[in-house]
């Protein structure tokens, strides 16, 4: 029962649940700017969860990764995405390939699968945060689903970033984070990835007059 859990673990569980909730909110969100704001909020929840884990265990590199999360995922990446949206003058709603309620139901099925898969794994871990492993896996799955069901390139990128959030949470919950070098490398990768994708967006728009990736399925010149 839950009274065996220390308070910090409960706090981390709550934040992890919040991250999952935000992942679902992103899945249901139609507007692109709100999507980016939700992504920033998810980053904030991730930062808080990592910070609580860092304070509880006193491990120095967890503080670093918490700081990295704050700077990169709450401030820099949303700022870059906001700027991209402004510059590309994207208006209106994100079209999804499947309608939203169906996506939600698929999402619930994914969460169930993720929880079931994660349960035996988290029994092996000895960290205070092991309960959140299932949630981390679910967030990764939901982000995948978002990338699959969205048409516009920019919401696919948000899905990709959200997936990274999930992976980060998984790393923190299973093993108290990856080694510093790996974490820095991934953070840099994500940053560079977003910048490159930003350039791609302009190229795609110049070529096709739209960010709808359906147009890229045809390979012929016309």
């Amino acid at each position, binding site marked *: 029962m*839950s009274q065996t*859990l220390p308070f910090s673990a409960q706090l981390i*569980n*709550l934040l992890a*649940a*919040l991250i999952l909730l935000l992942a679902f909110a992103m899945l*249901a969100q139609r507007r692109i700017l709100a999507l980016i704001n939700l992504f920033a909020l998810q980053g904030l929840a991730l930062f808080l969860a990592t910070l609580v884990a860092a304070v509880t265990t006193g491990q120095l590199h967890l503080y670093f990764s918490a700081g990295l999360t704050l700077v990169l995922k709450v401030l820099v990446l949303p700022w870059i995405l906001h700027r991209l949206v402004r510059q590309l003058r994207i208006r209106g709603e994100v079209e999804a390939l499947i309608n939203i309620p169906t996506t939600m*139901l698929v999402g619930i099925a994914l969460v*169930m699968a993720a*929880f079931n898969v994660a349960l035996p794994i988290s029994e092996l871990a000895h960290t205070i945060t092991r309960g959140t492993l299932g949630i981390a896996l679910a967030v990764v799955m939901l982000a995948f689903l978002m990338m699959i069901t969205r048409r516009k390139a920019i919401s696919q990128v948000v899905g990709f970033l959200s997936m990274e959030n999930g992976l980060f949470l998984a790393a923190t919950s299973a093993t108290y984070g990856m080694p510093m070098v790996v974490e820095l490398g991934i953070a840099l990768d994500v940053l560079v990835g977003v910048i490159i994708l930003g350039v791609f967006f302009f190229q795609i728009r110049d070529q096709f007059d739209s960010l709808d990736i359906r147009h890229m399925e045809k390979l012929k010149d016309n």
Partner: protein
Amino acid sequence: MNLSGFLGQVFAILLALVLAPLLSGWVGQCRAWFQNRTAPPLLLPYYMLQKLFNKEVVLAHNASSLFRAAPFVIFGCMVLACAIVPTLSTDLPFAPAADALALVGIFGLARIFIALAGMDVGTAFGSLGGRREMLVGFLAEPALLMVFFTLAMIAQSTSLATIVDTLAHRELVIYPSLAFAGVAFTFVSLAENARVPVDNPATHLELTMIHEAMILEYSGRHLALIEWAASLKLYAYSCLGLALFFPWGIAPGDNFLALVAAIPLLLLKLAIGGVLLAGIETINAKMRIFRAPEFLGTAFMLAVLGLLVRLLLEVRT
């Protein structure tokens, strides 16, 4: 069943009957303030009830006895619902009569009768409202049940009094599943009480109304009873939300002092809840009726997630 518990039960019902129109008036007033309108008087629902009770009842020629009986059935359902929701104390002699699942059934019974009454006279608006009400109802009910299942898993019981007792008198434990259930419950309450994202209680625009469309044919004391029942429903849902998610201050048993102390706390919580409800109604636009399934589907999904999170995070074998 002891005498003090019985008195407490009677007092809780009387309090519900008196406070329910006040809560509706308070929400209406806050809404007007938020929207920069001149607020109607706080006691407006009471004047309205008094006026309607003094008016003559006008019945349609083809109204059946069901049409005349429905207001009383609906009113009775809502009073019973208020009686089994723990508002002041958890020592309710009526509580064993109906658990959380039966409460959903009581709301369902009232809904069926109001929909039947709407269709009884045979006007287009009545049947339209009845159909929409059933659509909203059949989507809201499973979400509400899922919320109750999550809570029942925490308290190991489906009795509302036991659930509230467990939640109110525990050491500080954070239940993430309660957060999910709370959000889902808010969604369901908005839909069930004909509030803004789903229905607008203040409109008579034929394309959008749900609740108002069904009661167009009612007049006099019948209308008064239905209006009163609607406030009672809002009161029951508010008290249910407060008791389940903010249960502090509810008296544990036949402790008279705690019972007295619970009254101002309940009033304060209801007042804050009313402000929040008016705020939600102000910042949201009414959605198209075809968006309602999506809204309630989200509520259902959140409630299921709460249940799953409860299984994953909080149950240790």
